[in-house]
């Protein structure tokens, strides 16, 4: 036998072994996750169902993947490693430089693209579920990025400020009848006020302790919303929240409505498109303000605080006010996003402000690369758009069987994605830091040197 043939048969044996191991682990893992399912029957009792067909498909896919990995991918990687080293995995310069303007241009014409591709009735879903939904999370990600990414304070209760903004708008709009544009800044200010209120007790806390207290704060706000029934209407929520108008012209079918004023046939798509551009403007505003703040002394102080708090104090920086401004600024943007959310939905309830939302926003910031605007935007598209797109993957039913619902697996995929990112890109998608100022040459800084903060 020649050396090459011998190596191949060795590889084949190793691949079979790996595939067998993967099959056993996959079976053990997915038997409880996928193999069994509990559904309520007509008497509202839980009944155990088995889904061994779907389980078999899962295990087969894993086995095949492990087999191919050992037989094909691993030797290919080994060959590539022996080749002379190229620049280590750098994104081409033109791509990193032009990505932001290109992405901005795309989101600006996105409604037009969708309208021409799917027509007005189909476009509603794509603009609303994908466009607006993702942009809300982009904005929340930008806001939390100030607290977590720049100042290095891990805030697991960020959704509380989102809730404050949403309820501020809903309650004030319903009781005082003020317009959306009046209440938007007011909601931001109220959320910032709560940000400072949370900031004071947690000033001395760091790391895990800070995370726990902020998490509890998020829960406290949610429980207050549930139990303060005279004001918030508890679980039932607040319905009939006034919708934003086109600078005074409402989006309805009346004679003074948007469609009639502009001589167009009535359609709900106008409001959706308007909301899309509204949240786009808000998200861009957040990004713009954050970029400016980073170049101002307060932004540098936030980053210095993340790097070394004691050195900050030795340089005469008041760390108390620096932390409070970080909390307040982050909370303010969440307040804007919250009031937009209430105005878009027309209905809010405590169910929209669970810990899951906070976790998603933190995940977006961490996946994106803490402190990076573009990274956060891409991560928001992947996380929120990814879960939305699962609803569209009907062809998976052909593979996994008729009763397979991809949406049910979104948490599983979410987990896979997090693990994968933490293995390959532990510092997030954009793992460099841009200096805020330079003398001769702008050099990006590797994230390995950048600290993550004490919490």
């Amino acid at each position, binding site marked *: 036998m020649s050396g090459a043939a011998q190596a191949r048969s060795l590889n084949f044996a190793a691949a079979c072994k790996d595939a067998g191991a993967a099959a056993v682990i996959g079976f053990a893992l997915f038997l409880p996750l996928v193999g069994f399912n509990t559904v309520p029957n007509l008497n509202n009792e839980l009944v155990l169902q088995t889904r061994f067909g779907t389980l078999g498909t899962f295990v087969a896919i894993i086995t095949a993947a492990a087999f191919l990995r050992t037989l094909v991918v691993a030797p290919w990687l080994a060959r590539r490693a022996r080749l002379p080293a190229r620049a280590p995995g750098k994104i081409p310069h033109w791509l990193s430089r032009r990505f932001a303007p290109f992405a901005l241009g795309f989101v600006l014409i996105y409604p037009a693209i969708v309208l021409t591709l799917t027509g007005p009735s189909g476009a509603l879903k794509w603009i609303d579920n994908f466009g607006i939904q993702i942009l809300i999370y982009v904005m929340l990600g930008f806001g939390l990025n100030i607290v977590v990414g720049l100042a290095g304070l891990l805030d697991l209760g960020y959704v509380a400020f989102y809730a404050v903004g949403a309820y501020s708008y809903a309650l004030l709009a319903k009781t005082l009848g003020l317009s959306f544009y009046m209440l938007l800044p007011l909601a931001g200010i109220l959320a910032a006020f709560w940000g400072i209120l949370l900031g004071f007790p947690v000033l001395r806390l760091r790391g895990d302790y800070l995370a726990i207290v902020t998490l509890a704060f998020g829960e406290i706000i949610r429980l207050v919303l549930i139990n303060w029934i005279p004001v918030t209407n508890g679980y039932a929520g607040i319905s009939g929240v006034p919708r934003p108008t086109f600078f005074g012209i409402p989006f309805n079918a009346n004679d003074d409505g948007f469609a009639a004023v502009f001589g167009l046939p009535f359609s709900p798509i106008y409001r959706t498109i308007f909301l899309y551009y509204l949240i786009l403007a808000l998200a861009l505003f957040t990004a713009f303000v954050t970029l400016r703040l980073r170049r*101002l002394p307060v932004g*540098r102080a936030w980053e*210095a605080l993340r*790097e070394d708090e004691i050195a900050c104090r030795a340089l*005469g920086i008041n760390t108390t006010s620096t932390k409070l401004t970080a909390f307040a600024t982050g909370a303010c943007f969440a307040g804007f996003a919250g009031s937009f959310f209430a105005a878009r939905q027309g209905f809010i309830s405590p169910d929209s402000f669970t810990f899951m939302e906070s976790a998603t926003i933190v995940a977006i910031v961490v996946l994106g690369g803490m402190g990076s605007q573009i990274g956060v935007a891409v991560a928001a598209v992947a996380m929120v758009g990814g879960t939305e797109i699962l609803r569209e993957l009907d062809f998976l039913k052909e593979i996994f069987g008729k009763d397979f619902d991809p949406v049910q697996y979104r948490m599983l995929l979410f987990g896979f994605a997090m693990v994968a990112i933490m293995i390959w890109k532990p510092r997030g998608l954009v793992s460099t830091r841009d200096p805020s*100022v330079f003398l001769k040459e702008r*050099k990006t800084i590797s994230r390995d040197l*950048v600290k993550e903060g004490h919490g």
Partner: protein
Amino acid sequence: MTAALLDVEHLTMRFGGLVAVNDVSFSARRGEITALIGPNGAGKTTVFNCITGFYKATVGRIVLRHGDPLGEAELALLTRRGERRLKRRGGTLYLLERMPEHLVAEDGRVARTFQNIRLFSGMTVLENLLVAQHNTLMFASGYTVLGVLGIGGYAKAERAAIEKAEHWLEATGLIDRADDPAGELPYGGQRRLEIARAMCTDPVLLCLDEPAAGLNPREKADLTDLILKIRNDHATSVVLIEHDMSVVMEISDHVVVLDYGVKIADGTPAAVRSDQKVIAAYLGVAEQEVARVEAEVGL
């Protein structure tokens, strides 16, 4: 004799039952380099932490004088009033033990470096020096409000801050590394950058905690030149903790020796070098002393 820039009076620092510093008094005069030496665990860094406000002294008074020195009457008045500072004519008195650490740096203009270097390692060398000018820039940016709107003289203030940073980068030989992350500098460069960063706050008193630790002989020579230059060319006095006696003896005007939290000697380098107590603290008890004690106990 002019009044000292800094007076440490009867400083005592207790941590629970441990007395780290016990009734230590010394002065640092304007335009002089004062060295604080002593064996490991003598309480030198604790004294530093008390001066710079990181620790609140258990007992004692720490007086800092800006401008024209004020008299004893004013000092007594300030102490009685329970305030932090007293401003009269062309001079100001500060009681540092009453001030939080960031005000010691901002108002008292006392800058410090750390024994274990504390740089903002993920920020560039230049950014490190701009963070040091935070309070000046914060005022210029209208406490962020005007800066975000892009009005006011922030751009001009930032240019001035960069110029000052450039001056100190040239003085410390780091000008070519200005746009590199601070964490990538070699050890000696990081030590120098920490001094440059402290100097960017325009201090009247610079406290250096073991600036020569871990440096090679050449770097040590550069460092002594830098410290002498800071004293001679700028209105900055220096207090430094150092274990390297060659550095201490070469540059200090005045040496204070601590051992087990107590001051055992205070004077010129030459006087301290020949002080029996200092020799005993550093090298153990002298031989004739051992012989005398042995004779006393009848061995």
